[in-house]
């Protein structure tokens, strides 16, 4: 190797990561100049590794701040707190301890639920049973109370404040809120207190009819195919099948859900004029609205008489006969505007 070739050979040896080329070493042994050239070059290259500069302290903190604030597209949504808590517990606690903790939590939850239910006000906020008949089933559901009486029997209830019900079975009655009674089956005598009447209306809903109370005492009977309402005192707005009517004391209406008919009460049977399908209604067990002429306000709340009971203040000594819904003579319904 000639000295002119040494430089190129040195560069080639360095580039091939083979700094110990025999040819180079042989030439360096015989040529001090080239030996110095090679040594100085290698020293310079080795010195490059010592050129590292200290890293400013703000690099790590600034980088971490930027990374913390970044929202990469691959980022997994942060699981909710309870999920992170459970996963953390699962990774730290052994399985038996975890199972024990779960059981303890379950027991605490059941106890809290039981205490909460026991402390909660019973459904008397919506309805309260004044007199209970054997066989009466009370089902409390969310926002309503159902009264089921499969056989004969009577019961007396207080619905909210100022409404007293005397019901006779078989009965399917549901009281919702404090102002709505849904009667699917049975006979119920309602007495709505006057004070309540000023504040809000009271509604009785049957499959065939909706009665909006503006009066004080009335009886609703629900049969398979029809509903009959007898108004003892005050006034009552009823609607059925898209028709509305206002009842006055002593009137009776009957509807099958499509036709609303006034029933004329008389000692003798009268002819049906509008609803020939309405058959005479038998009422084997009907609660009583007091037929005494005393205004309802004069009677204490909850004193609606029930069948088989003597009406308080009545001198007859016998159950008072209700209005006769079985009269099969109807007056044609006249719209309210015609009156």
């Amino acid at each position, binding site marked *: 190797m000639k000295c002119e070739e040494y430089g190129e050979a040195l*560069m*080639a040896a360095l580039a091939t990561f083979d700094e110990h080329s025999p040819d180079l070493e042989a030439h360096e042994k015989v040529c001090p100049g080239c030996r110095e050239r090679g040594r100085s070059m290698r020293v310079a290259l080795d010195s*490059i590794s010592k*050129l590292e500069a200290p*890293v400013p302290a703000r*690099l790590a903190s600034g980088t971490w701040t930027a*990374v913390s604030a970044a929202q990469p597209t691959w980022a997994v949504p942060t699981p909710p707190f309870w999920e992170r808590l459970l996963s953390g517990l699962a990774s730290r606690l052994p399985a038996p301890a975890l199972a024990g903790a779960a059981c303890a939590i379950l027991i605490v939850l059941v106890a809290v639920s039981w205490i909460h239910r026991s402390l909660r006000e019973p459904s008397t906020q919506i309805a309260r049973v004044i007199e209970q008949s054997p066989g009466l089933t009370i089902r409390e559901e969310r926002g309503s109370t159902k009264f089921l009486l499969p056989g004969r029997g009577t019961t007396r209830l207080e619905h909210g404040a100022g409404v007293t019900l005397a019901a006779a079975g078989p009965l399917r009655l549901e009281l919702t809120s404090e102002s709505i009674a849904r009667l699917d089956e049975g006979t119920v005598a309602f007495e709505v207190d006057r004070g309540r009447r000023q504040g809000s209306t009271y509604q009785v809903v049957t499959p065939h009819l909706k009665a909006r109370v503006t009066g004080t005492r009335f009886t609703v009977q629900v049969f398979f195919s029809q509903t009959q309402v007898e108004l003892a005192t005050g006034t009552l707005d009823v609607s059925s099948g898209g028709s509305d009517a206002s009842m006055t004391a002593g009137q009776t209406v009957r509807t099958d859900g499509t036709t609303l008919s006034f029933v004329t009460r008389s000692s003798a049977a009268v002819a049906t004029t509008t609803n020939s399908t309405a058959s005479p209604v038998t009422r084997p067990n009907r609660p009583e609205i007091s037929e005494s002429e005393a205004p309802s306000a004069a009677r204490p709340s909850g004193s609606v008489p029930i069948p088989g009971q003597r009406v308080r203040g009545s001198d007859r000594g016998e159950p008072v006969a209700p209005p006769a819904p079985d009269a099969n003579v109807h007056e044609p319904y006249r719209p309210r505007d015609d009156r």
Partner: protein
Amino acid sequence: MMDDTRNGPDADEVIVREVLGGKKDRFRVIIDRYQDRVYNLVRRFVGHDDAVDVAQDAFLRAYLHLDHYDPGYPFSNWLFKIAQNRAFTHLKRRAGHTGHPSLEFAADPDRCEVADVRPLNDPAAVAETKNTGEVLERALARVPAKYRLLIHLRHSMGLQGPEIAQIVGIPVGTVKYRFHEAYKVLRQVLVELGVVAP
């Protein structure tokens, strides 16, 4: 040298998996582990003033695109490639925005860019040169960026041919060829500076 980064619970690939799984805090280990190498790599191209910003940008890019990392290759190589790209991008942007005469060719990695454009044989510059380190810094600054990158990866970071090829993105044979060219340029500069014998 980097055994702890290849194996064990603190291996780079394990940490990357954990970060992708939602343990964001684990990326802090990556930052602490590579901040010096990334910083010095980008400093070699952009200088002291901008090195911190560019290094931060490199780490942030790596974090944002962590799902693109291929675990089949060393994480460090992937990170250094990002740092190298950010440094070159920064050089291009800086040259375009400032129009500084000494930087106007910085966008071309075949050219060199230096803040000190005085001739190497300028007596004043030579007088300011206090030690070999400064001389080498000045010499490296005069080497084109693409060669400087190779020299830095090999002699500062201790990487070998295949790793350098992976970072730079060229075949190993091309790496050797470029090293040959790089050493010739560097030697010429060092000779002018009087560091090595002509």
